[in-house]
């Protein structure tokens, strides 16, 4: 392996062509990123910033499915919060109500198993609402995905699922119930590590899937579904597979959310959150995994920084703090407008441009 890529393409097989870390430099960058994420941030960041990163991770996990559906398969969705809700409720109910054999709870396997089951259930649930995609596209599909939100969260979860156990609307998980093996997830930092592992697993899984036959089929459907069908791709099967994969990751996101808060109610999954996730990928860049991460960072971290920036002025203008949500909402809307007008490819495109510039630096002509 060379340190830098030579000028020109010398790959002799697909493995080389698709290699993740093609040079020592890239491997070095990834190891550095690993150190930053697993060692530097936990050491440097205080509890507040760790919780902000947890929010970023939750947004990434939520938006990955939306990116897959919209960005890679061309299936516009506005009801993804429903699948997060299915994941969160499945995981919670399994932990609280399922008669686990003693040894499984003793070994701290209830939560990890519940994450997996929640992902499967959310995936299947997503397929149900993906079925109309066999017949409808565009605006009509948006409406059917919105139905997922209202049928799942406002009707089924609120009216029936929430009543299980007679608790009322909100479920709260007693301390110590969310654990992986002997490791009880009871602090922001532990939630952060859980988030990192889940994000890395989901991102790696999805990136690999996108490089496979399945991913290529999705992209063919996105680019032109009729041409894809002519080429022999079973469009309905792959669309439903995309819904399953998106729901699966959404289920993981929902299961992760309960470790962050140890409580859930239907109010945690409003329709606005589905819209927000679409905004994340629009700002980050549609059709790129980097975009999902950049979009999540932008929507969470930049907003927090903006908030911190106005706090010193709060003594003089106390209304600034109260009005911050207006500012945030306005900034969200404005950011989407500006990105759609001036940078429709999102932040990921800027990243790609910067990388290209430095790849050829100092002779960038």
């Amino acid at each position, binding site marked *: 392996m060379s340190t830098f890529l030579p000028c020109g393409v010398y790959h002799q097989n697909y493995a080389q062509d698709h290699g993740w870390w093609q040079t020592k430099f890239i491997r070095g960058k990834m190891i550095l990123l690993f150190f930053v994420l697993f060692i530097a941030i936990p050491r440097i960041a*205080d*509890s*507040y910033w760790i*919780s*902000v990163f947890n*929010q970023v991770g*939750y947004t990434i996990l939520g938006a990955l499915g939306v990116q897959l559906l919209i960005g890679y398969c061309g299936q516009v969705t506005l009801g993804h919060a429903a699948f997060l809700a299915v994941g969160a409720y499945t995981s919670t109910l399994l932990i609280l109500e399922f008669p686990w054999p003693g040894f499984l709870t003793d070994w701290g396997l209830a939560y990890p198993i519940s994450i997996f089951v929640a992902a499967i259930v959310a995936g299947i649930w997503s397929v149900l609402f993906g079925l109309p995609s066999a017949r409808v596209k565009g605006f009509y599909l948006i409406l059917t995905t919105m139905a997922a939100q209202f049928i799942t*969260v*406002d009707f089924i979860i*609120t*009216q029936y699922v929430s009543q299980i156990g*007679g608790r*009322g*609307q*909100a479920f*709260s*998980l007693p*301390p110590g119930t969310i654990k992986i093996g002997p490791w009880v997830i*009871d602090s*922001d930092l532990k939630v952060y590590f859980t988030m990192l592992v889940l994000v890395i697993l989901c991102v790696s899984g999805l990136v690999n899937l996108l490089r496979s036959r399945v991913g290529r089929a999705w992209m063919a459907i996105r680019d032109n579904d009729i041409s894809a069908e002519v080429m022999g791709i079973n469009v309905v099967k792959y669309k439903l597979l995309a819904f399953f994969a998106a729901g699966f990751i959404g289920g993981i996101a929902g299961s992760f959310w309960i470790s*962050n*808060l*140890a*409580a*859930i*109610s*239907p*109010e*945690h999954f*409003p329709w*606005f*959150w589905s819209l927000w996730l679409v905004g994340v990928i629009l700002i980050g860049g549609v059709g790129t995994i980097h975009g999902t991460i950049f979009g999540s960072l932008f929507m969470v971290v930049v907003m*927090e920084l903006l*908030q911190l920036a106005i*706090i*010193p*002025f*709060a*003594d*003089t203008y*106390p209304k600034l*703090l*109260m*009005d*911050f*949500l*207006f500012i945030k*909402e306005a900034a969200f809307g404005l950011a989407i407008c500006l990105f759609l007008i001036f940078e429709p490819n999102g932040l990921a495109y800027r990243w790609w441009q910067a990388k290209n510039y430095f790849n050829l630096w100092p002779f960038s002509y």
Partner: protein
Amino acid sequence: MKSKIVAKVFTLLFAAVLITGSASIGAETIKVGSLNDMTGATSDVGKDYALGIAEAIHYVNENGGINGKNIKLYQFDYGYRVPEALTKYKLFKRFKCVAVLGWGTGDTEALSPTVTKDKMPYVSASYSGHLTDPKKTPYNLFFATDYSTNARAAITAWFDKRWPGHKDNGKRKPRLVCSYMFASPYCSAPIRAIKDQAEILGFEVGPDQDVSLFAIDTKSQILGMKEFKPDLVWHGNTTMSVAATLRDAYSLGLGADHIVNNWGYDENLPRLAGKASEGVMGAAVCAFFGENVPLMDKVLEYAKKYNPGVPDEKRLIRTVQAWGAVFVLREALKRADKAGGLGGENILKKGFETMKDFDIGLGAPPVTYTATDHRVAGQVPIYELKGGKFQIVEHVDLKKRWPEKWAGEWIGW
């Protein structure tokens, strides 16, 4: 040239940050966070509450503070969104706030495990009965009687005062229906208690009706109720939605009496519902804005002083409730400060849980917290609307009437 101007502007901004930031250094302050809803689903009642919180904190600071220390308030609008509430709460922790003045049931119940772990006293505007059992939610507190107690009292008052004069009394059971937003933990918090109370008093309970907090048309729900022919409807939403339901019930001739949870029962109700609000009963956890009760003069004075743009006739009982929350926190902080410090546990044990029949004024019942029970009182004043004015009907004392159930069975739900 341009870059020089930009550099100057940034230097000035930086200097302003330093000056404003350093102004607070040196003065001894106690930091308190406040979550409010100015833009979300409950903003119809949340805006006035938020104004009240800021005014009450000004009053506290201008009248001795907490044993001489001023409160520095960090007040945020979170739009009634749970993820937003979570990040704001973490921000309060970062600012080293000693307590939080919270808002809705959804976020208060969601944050409950976290505040318990952090030992952060959390004085909410949610009066959910789920938050009253210190075994489960030790750091959740509020100054008012809880939703379940209020609902039990309102049903009892109707049963005592209205049902005996009903033409069907003695011929059949009275019929009750609940109208509220199922998805909202605030609205659904007392449902179990309501059905329990209905059973105790011998009601027949009809199917619940799902009415959104944003509802402006509730005719289908009213038609659903009409099939059951209720004598009494309990409303669990906030004022705007309750007013819409009352109007539709009036225009469709439902013919039932109405009782309303406290966040749907304020000065705006007769304004919005007009004749349809006549005779509507409800629980109020303190005096209405401008009523002649101790300390109301201060509430009026500070409303004029700090928010002169909002006329008195636009202000609501929500302002008074906000003052109640601030006063109960002030007392707890004062006691804890004298007793050794403002750590979370100290505020709870040496502050809140030492209050016994503590009178905060404002027409609120005297407040008692114990280590085993965070319900502040068992007596609830029930009002009714007559000619657009609130008139007291009865003070229902649940504690006296059902002492055994009150002491054991009813706590925490």
